[in-house]
Protein backbone atom coordinates (compact mmCIF):
# COMPACT_ATOMS: atom_id res chain seq x y z
CA UNK A 1 0.00 0.00 0.00
CA UNK A 2 1.37 3.39 -0.89
CA UNK A 3 2.25 6.13 1.60
CA UNK A 4 -0.59 8.31 0.36
CA UNK A 5 -3.28 5.67 0.77
CA UNK A 6 -2.17 4.89 4.33
CA UNK A 7 -2.45 8.52 5.30
CA UNK A 8 -5.76 9.06 3.50
CA UNK A 9 -7.37 6.13 5.31
CA UNK A 10 -7.35 8.15 8.54
CA UNK A 11 -9.51 11.15 9.41
CA UNK A 12 -7.69 14.49 9.73
CA UNK A 13 -8.30 14.53 13.50
CA UNK A 14 -6.51 11.22 14.14
CA UNK A 15 -3.84 11.63 11.49
CA UNK A 16 -0.38 11.66 13.10
CA UNK A 17 2.29 14.22 12.37
CA UNK A 18 3.72 13.75 8.86
CA UNK A 19 6.32 11.00 8.83
CA UNK A 20 8.02 8.86 6.21
CA UNK A 21 6.32 5.48 5.80
CA UNK A 22 8.35 3.13 3.65
CA UNK A 23 6.94 0.16 1.76
CA UNK A 24 8.54 -2.17 4.29
CA UNK A 25 6.82 -0.45 7.23
CA UNK A 26 3.39 -0.44 5.62
CA UNK A 27 0.91 -3.06 6.84
CA UNK A 28 0.53 -6.00 4.47
CA UNK A 29 -2.93 -6.31 2.97
CA UNK A 30 -4.47 -8.64 0.42
CA UNK A 31 -3.24 -6.72 -2.60
CA UNK A 32 0.30 -6.51 -1.21
CA UNK A 33 0.26 -10.22 -0.43
CA UNK A 34 -0.67 -10.92 -4.02
CA UNK A 35 2.07 -8.62 -5.26
CA UNK A 36 4.67 -10.31 -3.02
CA UNK A 37 3.54 -13.78 -4.12
CA UNK A 38 3.64 -12.78 -7.79
CA UNK A 39 7.09 -11.25 -7.40
CA UNK A 40 8.30 -14.40 -5.64
CA UNK A 41 6.99 -16.61 -8.47
CA UNK A 42 8.66 -14.40 -11.10
CA UNK A 43 11.94 -14.44 -9.18
CA UNK A 44 11.82 -18.22 -8.90
CA UNK A 45 11.05 -18.67 -12.58
CA UNK A 46 13.93 -16.38 -13.52
CA UNK A 47 16.21 -18.41 -11.26
CA UNK A 48 15.08 -21.68 -12.85
CA UNK A 49 15.86 -20.24 -16.30
CA UNK A 50 19.31 -19.23 -15.06
CA UNK A 51 19.80 -22.73 -13.65
CA UNK A 52 18.79 -24.17 -17.03
CA UNK A 53 21.75 -22.36 -18.59
CA UNK A 54 23.96 -23.79 -15.86
CA UNK A 55 22.61 -27.26 -16.63
CA UNK A 56 23.81 -26.91 -20.22
CA UNK A 57 27.33 -25.90 -19.11
CA UNK A 58 27.71 -28.64 -16.49
CA UNK A 59 26.02 -31.28 -18.62
CA UNK A 60 28.37 -30.50 -21.51
CA UNK A 61 31.40 -30.97 -19.26
CA UNK A 62 29.96 -34.19 -17.86
CA UNK A 63 29.17 -35.31 -21.41
CA UNK A 64 32.79 -34.76 -22.46
CA UNK A 65 33.91 -36.85 -19.48
CA UNK A 66 31.44 -39.63 -20.29
CA UNK A 67 32.76 -39.87 -23.85
CA UNK A 68 36.32 -40.03 -22.48
CA UNK A 69 35.25 -42.67 -19.92
CA UNK A 70 33.71 -44.80 -22.70
CA UNK A 71 36.75 -44.49 -24.94
CA UNK A 72 39.50 -44.76 -22.28
CA UNK A 73 38.15 -46.75 -19.31
CA UNK A 74 41.65 -47.96 -18.38
CA UNK A 75 42.84 -44.39 -17.66
CA UNK A 76 39.78 -43.62 -15.52
CA UNK A 77 40.21 -46.86 -13.52
CA UNK A 78 43.88 -46.02 -12.95
CA UNK A 79 42.94 -42.60 -11.61
CA UNK A 80 40.29 -44.18 -9.35
CA UNK A 81 43.04 -46.31 -7.78
CA UNK A 82 44.96 -43.17 -6.78
CA UNK A 83 41.92 -41.14 -5.66
CA UNK A 84 41.35 -40.71 -1.93
CA UNK A 85 37.72 -41.85 -2.02
CA UNK A 86 37.29 -41.32 1.75
CA UNK A 87 38.15 -37.65 1.38
CA UNK A 88 35.76 -37.19 -1.54
CA UNK A 89 32.98 -39.07 0.28
CA UNK A 90 33.49 -36.85 3.32
CA UNK A 91 33.22 -33.83 1.02
CA UNK A 92 30.02 -35.22 -0.46
CA UNK A 93 28.54 -35.56 3.02
CA UNK A 94 29.56 -31.98 3.83
CA UNK A 95 27.68 -30.71 0.81
CA UNK A 96 24.61 -32.88 1.49
CA UNK A 97 24.59 -31.62 5.08
CA UNK A 98 24.89 -28.02 3.90
CA UNK A 99 21.85 -28.54 1.67
CA UNK A 100 19.95 -29.90 4.66
CA UNK A 101 21.03 -26.86 6.72
CA UNK A 102 19.78 -24.65 3.90
CA UNK A 103 16.24 -26.07 3.94
CA UNK A 104 16.15 -26.12 7.73
CA UNK A 105 17.01 -22.42 7.69
CA UNK A 106 14.24 -21.77 5.17
CA UNK A 107 11.88 -23.71 7.44
CA UNK A 108 12.74 -21.35 10.31
CA UNK A 109 12.09 -18.12 8.41
CA UNK A 110 8.72 -19.51 7.31
CA UNK A 111 7.71 -19.46 10.98
CA UNK A 112 9.23 -16.03 11.55
CA UNK A 113 12.37 -17.19 13.32
CA UNK A 114 15.28 -15.24 11.80
CA UNK A 115 17.68 -16.34 14.55
CA UNK A 116 17.10 -19.96 13.58
CA UNK A 117 17.76 -19.12 9.94
CA UNK A 118 21.02 -17.36 10.79
CA UNK A 119 22.21 -20.39 12.79
CA UNK A 120 21.44 -22.88 9.99
CA UNK A 121 22.87 -20.65 7.26
CA UNK A 122 25.99 -20.09 9.35
CA UNK A 123 26.45 -23.88 9.46
CA UNK A 124 25.84 -24.06 5.72
CA UNK A 125 28.53 -21.46 5.01
CA UNK A 126 31.04 -23.23 7.26
CA UNK A 127 30.40 -26.57 5.52
CA UNK A 128 30.72 -24.96 2.08
CA UNK A 129 34.04 -23.40 3.08
CA UNK A 130 35.38 -26.74 4.39
CA UNK A 131 34.25 -28.38 1.13
CA UNK A 132 36.36 -25.96 -0.92
CA UNK A 133 39.32 -26.45 1.45
CA UNK A 134 39.15 -30.24 1.12
CA UNK A 135 38.83 -29.95 -2.64
CA UNK A 136 42.11 -28.04 -2.60
CA UNK A 137 43.68 -30.86 -0.54
CA UNK A 138 42.36 -33.38 -3.05
CA UNK A 139 43.84 -31.43 -5.98
CA UNK A 140 47.19 -31.39 -4.18
CA UNK A 141 47.09 -35.17 -3.76
CA UNK A 142 46.18 -35.74 -7.40
CA UNK A 143 48.93 -33.38 -8.54
CA UNK A 144 51.44 -35.37 -6.48
CA UNK A 145 50.35 -38.46 -8.39
CA UNK A 146 51.10 -36.62 -11.63
CA UNK A 147 47.49 -35.90 -12.60
CA UNK A 148 47.74 -32.35 -13.92
CA UNK A 149 45.68 -30.19 -16.26
CA UNK A 150 47.67 -31.35 -19.28
CA UNK A 151 49.07 -34.89 -19.24
CA UNK A 152 50.30 -35.20 -22.80
CA UNK A 153 52.00 -38.51 -23.42
CA UNK A 154 51.94 -40.01 -19.91
CA UNK A 155 49.62 -42.65 -18.38
CA UNK A 156 46.91 -40.07 -17.56
CA UNK A 157 46.88 -38.58 -21.06
CA UNK A 158 43.74 -36.50 -21.61
CA UNK A 159 42.24 -37.02 -18.18
CA UNK A 160 43.31 -33.86 -16.35
CA UNK A 161 41.30 -31.17 -18.11
CA UNK A 162 38.21 -33.39 -18.33
CA UNK A 163 38.35 -33.89 -14.56
CA UNK A 164 39.52 -30.50 -13.30
CA UNK A 165 37.23 -28.38 -15.50
CA UNK A 166 33.89 -29.61 -14.06
CA UNK A 167 35.14 -29.96 -10.46
CA UNK A 168 36.84 -26.55 -10.41
CA UNK A 169 33.83 -24.91 -12.05
CA UNK A 170 31.67 -26.53 -9.40
CA UNK A 171 34.06 -25.38 -6.66
CA UNK A 172 33.73 -21.81 -7.95
CA UNK A 173 29.96 -22.15 -7.59
CA UNK A 174 30.41 -23.28 -3.98
CA UNK A 175 32.58 -20.23 -3.23
CA UNK A 176 29.96 -17.92 -4.76
CA UNK A 177 27.27 -19.77 -2.78
CA UNK A 178 29.12 -19.23 0.51
CA UNK A 179 29.48 -15.50 -0.23
CA UNK A 180 25.80 -15.30 -1.18
CA UNK A 181 24.93 -17.15 2.05
CA UNK A 182 26.83 -14.57 4.10
CA UNK A 183 24.98 -11.82 2.25
CA UNK A 184 21.62 -13.46 3.10
CA UNK A 185 22.67 -13.80 6.76
CA UNK A 186 23.52 -10.10 6.84
CA UNK A 187 20.18 -9.20 5.25
CA UNK A 188 18.37 -11.37 7.78
CA UNK A 189 20.17 -9.63 10.65
CA UNK A 190 18.92 -6.33 9.25
CA UNK A 191 15.36 -7.68 9.38
CA UNK A 192 14.80 -7.80 5.64
CA UNK A 193 13.09 -11.21 5.70
CA UNK A 194 10.09 -12.58 7.56
CA UNK A 195 7.46 -15.30 7.17
CA UNK A 196 5.68 -13.31 4.45
CA UNK A 197 8.70 -12.08 2.56
CA UNK A 198 11.48 -14.60 1.95
CA UNK A 199 11.67 -14.89 -1.84
CA UNK A 200 15.33 -13.81 -1.73
CA UNK A 201 16.10 -16.78 0.50
CA UNK A 202 14.16 -19.21 -1.70
CA UNK A 203 16.08 -18.05 -4.76
CA UNK A 204 19.38 -18.54 -2.96
CA UNK A 205 18.15 -21.96 -1.86
CA UNK A 206 17.47 -22.98 -5.45
CA UNK A 207 21.02 -22.03 -6.38
CA UNK A 208 22.59 -23.87 -3.46
CA UNK A 209 20.58 -27.05 -4.01
CA UNK A 210 21.44 -26.95 -7.68
CA UNK A 211 25.13 -26.88 -6.70
CA UNK A 212 24.39 -29.92 -4.52
CA UNK A 213 22.59 -31.74 -7.37
CA UNK A 214 25.54 -31.14 -9.69
CA UNK A 215 27.92 -32.59 -7.10
CA UNK A 216 25.71 -35.67 -6.61
CA UNK A 217 26.06 -36.37 -10.34
CA UNK A 218 29.77 -35.42 -10.52
CA UNK A 219 30.61 -37.61 -7.52
CA UNK A 220 29.16 -40.71 -9.17
CA UNK A 221 30.37 -39.96 -12.70
CA UNK A 222 33.91 -38.87 -11.90
CA UNK A 223 34.82 -40.88 -8.82
CA UNK A 224 32.71 -44.02 -8.65
CA UNK A 225 31.67 -45.30 -12.08
Amino acid sequence: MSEMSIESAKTPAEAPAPSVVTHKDAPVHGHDNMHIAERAENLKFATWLYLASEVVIFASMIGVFIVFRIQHPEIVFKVHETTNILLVTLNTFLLLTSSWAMVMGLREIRVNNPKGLIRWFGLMCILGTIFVGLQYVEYQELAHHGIALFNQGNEYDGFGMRFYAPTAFHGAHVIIGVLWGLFVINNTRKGNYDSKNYAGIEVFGLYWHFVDVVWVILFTMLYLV
Partner: protein
Amino acid sequence: MTEVTHDTETHIVDAHEQEHYDEKFSFVGRTFNVPTYTGVFALLGGLTVIEVLLSRLEHSSIITIIMLALAVFKAGLVVWFYMHLNKDNRIFLATLLIPVVLVILAVLFLSIVPVGGYS
Protein backbone atom coordinates in the same frame (compact mmCIF):
# COMPACT_ATOMS: atom_id res chain seq x y z
CA MET B 1 -2.68 -17.09 13.27
CA THR B 2 -0.98 -19.01 16.09
CA GLU B 3 1.79 -18.21 18.50
CA VAL B 4 4.82 -20.48 18.48
CA THR B 5 7.97 -20.34 20.56
CA HIS B 6 11.44 -20.68 19.08
CA ASP B 7 14.60 -19.95 21.04
CA THR B 8 12.54 -18.65 23.98
CA GLU B 9 11.01 -16.02 21.68
CA THR B 10 7.39 -16.07 20.59
CA HIS B 11 6.56 -15.60 16.92
CA ILE B 12 3.19 -15.23 15.28
CA VAL B 13 2.73 -17.48 12.26
CA ASP B 14 -0.29 -18.57 10.28
CA ALA B 15 -1.66 -22.10 10.53
CA HIS B 16 -0.53 -23.05 7.02
CA GLU B 17 3.11 -22.24 7.71
CA GLN B 18 2.98 -24.03 11.05
CA GLU B 19 1.54 -27.09 9.32
CA HIS B 20 4.37 -26.92 6.77
CA TYR B 21 6.89 -26.64 9.62
CA ASP B 22 5.53 -29.76 11.31
CA GLU B 23 5.28 -31.83 8.11
CA LYS B 24 6.62 -35.38 8.48
CA PHE B 25 8.66 -37.34 5.97
CA SER B 26 6.66 -39.79 3.83
CA PHE B 27 8.38 -42.30 1.58
CA VAL B 28 7.01 -45.34 -0.30
CA GLY B 29 3.74 -45.09 1.57
CA ARG B 30 5.23 -44.88 5.06
CA THR B 31 5.35 -41.79 7.26
CA PHE B 32 8.35 -41.38 9.53
CA ASN B 33 8.43 -39.31 12.71
CA VAL B 34 11.06 -36.88 11.39
CA PRO B 35 10.65 -33.61 9.49
CA THR B 36 10.53 -34.10 5.70
CA TYR B 37 13.85 -32.33 5.12
CA THR B 38 15.66 -34.42 7.72
CA GLY B 39 14.19 -37.64 6.32
CA VAL B 40 15.38 -36.73 2.82
CA PHE B 41 18.83 -35.94 4.22
CA ALA B 42 19.03 -39.34 5.94
CA LEU B 43 17.96 -41.06 2.73
CA LEU B 44 20.55 -39.16 0.68
CA GLY B 45 23.26 -40.11 3.16
CA GLY B 46 22.26 -43.78 3.14
CA LEU B 47 22.19 -43.95 -0.65
CA THR B 48 25.62 -42.30 -0.83
CA VAL B 49 27.07 -44.96 1.46
CA ILE B 50 25.51 -47.70 -0.72
CA GLU B 51 26.99 -46.08 -3.84
CA VAL B 52 30.49 -45.94 -2.36
CA LEU B 53 30.25 -49.57 -1.23
CA LEU B 54 29.08 -50.65 -4.69
CA SER B 55 32.01 -48.83 -6.29
CA ARG B 56 34.39 -51.03 -4.25
CA LEU B 57 33.01 -54.15 -5.94
CA GLU B 58 34.32 -55.58 -9.21
CA HIS B 59 33.36 -53.27 -12.10
CA SER B 60 30.46 -54.54 -14.19
CA SER B 61 27.78 -53.03 -16.38
CA ILE B 62 25.00 -53.86 -13.95
CA ILE B 63 26.78 -52.17 -11.01
CA THR B 64 27.49 -49.13 -13.17
CA ILE B 65 23.82 -48.89 -14.12
CA ILE B 66 22.72 -49.25 -10.48
CA MET B 67 25.13 -46.52 -9.36
CA LEU B 68 23.99 -44.18 -12.13
CA ALA B 69 20.35 -44.87 -11.24
CA LEU B 70 21.11 -44.12 -7.56
CA ALA B 71 22.79 -40.83 -8.53
CA VAL B 72 19.81 -39.77 -10.65
CA PHE B 73 17.44 -40.79 -7.85
CA LYS B 74 19.44 -38.76 -5.31
CA ALA B 75 19.46 -35.73 -7.62
CA GLY B 76 15.71 -36.20 -8.04
CA LEU B 77 15.19 -36.23 -4.26
CA VAL B 78 17.03 -32.91 -3.91
CA VAL B 79 15.11 -31.33 -6.80
CA TRP B 80 11.75 -32.70 -5.68
CA PHE B 81 11.91 -31.99 -1.94
CA TYR B 82 14.64 -29.39 -1.37
CA MET B 83 13.96 -27.34 -4.51
CA HIS B 84 10.22 -27.76 -3.86
CA LEU B 85 9.23 -29.04 -7.28
CA ASN B 86 6.71 -31.24 -5.47
CA LYS B 87 4.78 -28.07 -4.61
CA ASP B 88 5.91 -25.43 -7.11
CA ASN B 89 4.78 -24.76 -10.66
CA ARG B 90 5.61 -27.69 -13.00
CA ILE B 91 6.87 -25.28 -15.67
CA PHE B 92 10.03 -25.08 -13.52
CA LEU B 93 10.53 -28.78 -14.10
CA ALA B 94 10.47 -28.20 -17.87
CA THR B 95 13.21 -25.58 -17.63
CA LEU B 96 15.37 -28.20 -15.94
CA LEU B 97 14.50 -31.23 -18.07
CA ILE B 98 14.71 -29.70 -21.56
CA PRO B 99 18.45 -28.88 -21.41
CA VAL B 100 19.16 -32.23 -19.70
CA VAL B 101 17.43 -34.15 -22.50
CA LEU B 102 19.23 -32.08 -25.14
CA VAL B 103 22.64 -32.79 -23.64
CA ILE B 104 21.88 -36.51 -23.22
CA LEU B 105 21.00 -36.67 -26.92
CA ALA B 106 24.19 -34.79 -27.79
CA VAL B 107 26.31 -37.20 -25.71
CA LEU B 108 24.64 -40.24 -27.29
CA PHE B 109 25.35 -38.76 -30.71
CA LEU B 110 28.99 -38.05 -29.75
CA SER B 111 29.51 -41.54 -28.36
CA ILE B 112 28.79 -43.19 -31.73
CA VAL B 113 31.72 -41.38 -33.33
CA PRO B 114 34.72 -43.77 -33.39
CA VAL B 115 37.90 -42.59 -31.62
CA GLY B 116 40.11 -42.97 -34.66
CA GLY B 117 37.59 -41.82 -37.28
CA TYR B 118 35.62 -43.97 -39.77
CA SER B 119 38.46 -44.87 -42.19
